C-alpha cells in the first residue's frame, strides 16, 4: 500500500507546489490578491513593471547570463569529454572536479569575488611587481554592469554538474569501441566523438542542460554576490521587491516573476534553436567527410579550460579560508601579516542557530527525499515499467521552472495558512528541490542492481520487506549514502526558498552569508562561506568513509 503511494505522492509533491505556486504568482501579477486589497483584475502591476527604470537591461542580463553560461560550460565539458575520455588524464581531472559539485553556489561565488576583486588574491599576486599598484585600483570587476563576473561564477560551478551528468550518460554510448571505429576511419578524437557518441549522450542530458539554463537565467544568490547592481539582474530585483516592507510591492514582484518566466522560456527557445544549428553543422561536417585529424590544440584547450575552472574554485575557497583567519592583511601582501581565530570566536555565538537550522532542514528533507525515491523505485521494480520521458520531465520540473516564478506564490499560500517561517514549511520547500537530485542520483545504481539476488532471497523463503531491508538496501549502502550526500548539499545551498519561506525568521548559513555580501566584511563572509562549503563536504566524506568502515571485511563492497 505504502509502495503504491510512492509515485503519486512524489509527482504530487513535485508538481503540486509548482502549479499552486504559479497560480499564487499569476493572480497578484494581474492585481488580484484580496488579502492585500487587490479585488479586481487589472494590468496595472504589469504597466508599473514596464515603467521600472532599467527593467529591460535587467531582463537582457538575465537572458544573456543563461545562454552564455550554458554555452561556455557545455562546450568545455563536451570538448573535454570528446578529447580525453578513456585516458588517465581524464580520470585525474574527473577526480579533481567531482568534489566541486558539493560546493554551494554562494560559496563558490564569494570565492571568485575574493580572487578577482581589485584588492583580491590575483591582484595581490601580481602587485606591485607587474602592475605598480600600491593600492587596489579603482576599477569595477566584481558586479560589472554586463554581468561577466557573474557568468564566470556560474560557469565554473556548472562545469562540474554538466561533467558528472554527461559521465552518467556515457556508459550507454559505448564510447571506447566507437572511438576505435571512428579512429580506424581516420577521424580525430574530438570529431569521432562528436559525430559518433555525443548525439545520444546529449539526448540523455538535455533536461539537465535545460535546468542549467533555467537556473542561470533566474539565480538570485550568485547574482547578488557577483552580478551587476544598477540595474541588478531581474531575479535579484524581484526578490528585493518581494521582501519590501511595503506589501503592495508584491503586485510588482509578482508581475516581475511573470516576466522572469517569459525570459527563461525565451532562453530555452533560443537554446533549442542553437541545438538545431549545432545538429545542422554536424550533419554538414559529416557529409563533407571532414576528419579533423589534427585536433591536439583543441584537446589541449579543452583540458586547460577544465583545469582552469577547477583551479579557480579551489583557489577561491582557499582565499575564503585565509580571510576567515586573517588578522591584519594590507594590500598588496599575498599573505596576511597575522593569522588569528578572532573572527571565528567573535562570530561563533551568532552562528549556532543558523547552523542548527541548516543541519536539521537538510537532514529532514534528505531523509524524506530518500524515502520517497526508494518507494518510487521499488514500485518501478514491481510494475516493471521504468517511467518514460514524461516522468523524467516531472522530476526535472522544479529545476526547469524558475524558482522565483512559483516560490512567490507558494510563500503567499504559506502566509495565508499561517505556516510561513515554520520548520515543516521550510523542510517541505527544500524537499521540492532535494528530491529530484536524490532520485536522479539513486536511480542509476538502483536500476543497475542484479535482481537475481532478490530471486535467490525469494527462493530462500524471504518476504519482500525482508529482502529489501536485509539484501538490497545493505548492498546499495554506498549509493544510498551518496544520494543522501547530494541531497544534503543541495539543501545546504538553497538560498531563495529559505529566504522566502523562512521569511527572515528561519535563517541558514546560506541566507546569512548572502545577506553579508553587500556589507563587504571579508573576514565574516569568509567564516560563513567556509562553513557553507564545509557542511556538504562533511556529508560526502561520511558517504565515502562509512561504507569503507562498515564493509572493511567485505572486499566486494569496499571499492
Amino acid at each position: 500500500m505504502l509502495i503504491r503511494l510512492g509515485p503519486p505522492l512524489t509527482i504530487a509533491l513535485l508538481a503540486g507546489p509548482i502549479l499552486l505556486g504559479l497560480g499564487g504568482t499569476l493572480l497578484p501579477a494581474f492585481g488580484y490578491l484580496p488579502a492585500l486589497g487587490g479585488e479586481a483584475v487589472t494590468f496595472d502591476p504589469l504597466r508599473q513593471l514596464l515603467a521600472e527604470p532599467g527593467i529591460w537591461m535587467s531582463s537582457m542580463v538575465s537572458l544573456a547570463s543563461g545562454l552564455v553560461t550554458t554555452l561556455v560550460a557545455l562546450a568545455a565539458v563536451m570538448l573535454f569529454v570528446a578529447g580525453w575520455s578513456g585516458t588517465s588524464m581524464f580520470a585525474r581531472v574527473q577526480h579533481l572536479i567531482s568534489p566541486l559539485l558539493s560546493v554551494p553556489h554562494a560559496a563558490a561565488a564569494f570565492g571568485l569575488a575574493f580572487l578577482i576583486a581589485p584588492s583580491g588574491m590575483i591582484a595581490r599576486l601580481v602587485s606591485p611587481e607587474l602592475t605598480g599598484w600600491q593600492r587596489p585600483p579603482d576599477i569595477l570587476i566584481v558586479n560589472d554592469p554586463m554581468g561577466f563576473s557573474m557568468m564566470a561564477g556560474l560557469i565554473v560551478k556548472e562545469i562540474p554538474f554538466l561533467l558528472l551528468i554527461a559521465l552518467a550518460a556515457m556508459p550507454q554510448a559505448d564510447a571506447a569501441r566507437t572511438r576505435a571505429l571512428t579512429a580506424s576511419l581516420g577521424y580525430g578524437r574530438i570529431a569521432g566523438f562528436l559525430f559518433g557518441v555525443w548525439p545520444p549522450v546529449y539526448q540523455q542530458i538535455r533536461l539537465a542542460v535545460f535546468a542549467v539554463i533555467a537556473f542561470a537565467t533566474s539565480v538570485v544568490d550568485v547574482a547578488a554576490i557577483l552580478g551587476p547592481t544598477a540595474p541588478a539582474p531581474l531575479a535579484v530585483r524581484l526578490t528585493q521587491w518581494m521582501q519590501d516592507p511595503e506589501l503592495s510591492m508584491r503586485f510588482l514582484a509578482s508581475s516581475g516573476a511573470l516576466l522572469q518566466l517569459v525570459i527563461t522560456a525565451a532562453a530555452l527557445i533560443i537554446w533549442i534553436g542553437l541545438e538545431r544549428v549545432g545538429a545542422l553543422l554536424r550533419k554538414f561536417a559529416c557529409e563533407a567527410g571532414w576528419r579533423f585529424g589534427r585536433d591536439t590544440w583543441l584537446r589541449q584547450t579543452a583540458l586547460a579550460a577544465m583545469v582552469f575552472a577547477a583551479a579557480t574554485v579551489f583557489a577561491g575557497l582557499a582565499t575564503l579560508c585565509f580571510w576567515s583567519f586573517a588578522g591584519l592583511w594590507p594590500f598588496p601582501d599575498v599573505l596576511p601579516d597575522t593569522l588569528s581565530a578572532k573572527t571565528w570566536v567573535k562570530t561563533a555565538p551568532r552562528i549556532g542557530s543558523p547552523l542548527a537550522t541548516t543541519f536539521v532542514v537538510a537532514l529532514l528533507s534528505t531523509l524524506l527525499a530518500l524515502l520517497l525515491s526508494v518507494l518510487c523505485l521499488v514500485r518501478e521494480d514491481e510494475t516493471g515499467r521504468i517511467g518514460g520521458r514524461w516522468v523524467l520531465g516531472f522530476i526535472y520540473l522544479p529545476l526547469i521552472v524558475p524558482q522565483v516564478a512559483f516560490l512567490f506564490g507558494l510563500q503567499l499560500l504559506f502566509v495565508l495558512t499561517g505556516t510561513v517561517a515554520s520548520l515543516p514549511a521550510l523542510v517541505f520547500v527544500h524537499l521540492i528541490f532535494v528530491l529530484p537530485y536524490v532520485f536522479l542520483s539513486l536511480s542509476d545504481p538502483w536500476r543497475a542492481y542484479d535482481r537475481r539476488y532478490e530471486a535467490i532471497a525469494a527462493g530462500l523463503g524471504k518476504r519482500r520487506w525482508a529482502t529489501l531491508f536485509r539484501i538490497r538496501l545493505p548492498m546499495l549502502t554506498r549509493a544510498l549514502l551518496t544520494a543522501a550526500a547530494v541531497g544534503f548539499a543541495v539543501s545546504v545551498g538553497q538560498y531563495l526558498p529559505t529566504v522566502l519561506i523562512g521569511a527572515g525568521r528561519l535563517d541558514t548559513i546560506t541566507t546569512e552569508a548572502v545577506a553579508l555580501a553587500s556589507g563587504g566584511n571579508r573576514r565574516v563572509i569568509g567564516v560563513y562561506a567556509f562553513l557553507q562549503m564545509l557542511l556538504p563536504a562533511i556529508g560526502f566524506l561520511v558517504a565515502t568513509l562509512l561504507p569503507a568502515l562498515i564493509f572493511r571485511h567485505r572486499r566486494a563492497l569496499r571499492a
Partner: protein
Amino acid sequence: MTQQGLFLDTVSIALAGRVLLSVTHRIAPGEVLTVMGPSGSGKSTLLAYIGGFLDPAFQASGKVFAGSIELTALPAQERHAGILFQDPLLFPHMSVAGNLVFAIAPDVTGRAQRMALAEATLAGVGLEGMGDRDPDTLSGGQKARVALARVLLSSPRALLLDEPFSKLDQDLRQQMRELVFAKARGAGLPVILVTHDEADAAAAQGPVIRIGE
C-alpha cells in the same frame, strides 16, 4: 517436504505473442529434467516462472505442483524453489556463514543451533571452517559450493539450475556436477537443469527436453 515430485501442467510461456516453450512433465524426487536450447530461446524463463519472478513482459500460463501443493498459486517467497544461477550471487555484505544462516528457516531457533547447522552444511560441501570468510575472497569453485550449500539449507521443494556450471573451468565443472546431483539425489529433490551444454545433459542422466530448435 522433500519426498515429492514436481509436476509441470501445460506450462506455456510467450513473449509478444510468440510461444517460447510449452511443457507438460512430471519429475520424480531425485530425478533431473534437462531443458536444452540455444541462448535467447527463453529456457531460463521456465525457471523464472516456477520460482515466481518472471519478468512481467512475458505471458505465462499453466500450473506447477510440488506434490499436492500448487506452487504457481503461491507468492515467490512461499514456493521454496531453490535456484542456482550461473553466478554464485553470494550476498556480498554478509560473511560466508551469514549467507548460510540467512537461508535457514526461522523454525530453527537459537543462534548457536543455526550457526552449527550452517557449519555442518559447509563441511558437507568440503568447506569446513570457512564460515567467517568474506565471500569475495573465495575461489570460483568455493563460491559455487557455498551457493549450493545455501540453497540446500533452505529446505527447497525443488532445485532449479540455470546453467550453474557454465562459468566454471573444465575440471571444476565435472566436480560440481557430481556434487550437485549427488546432493539433490541424497535430499530427494526434483531438479530442473537449464543448459546449452550437452555434457551437462549427459551427466544429469535424465530426460531431456529441447526447445527453440
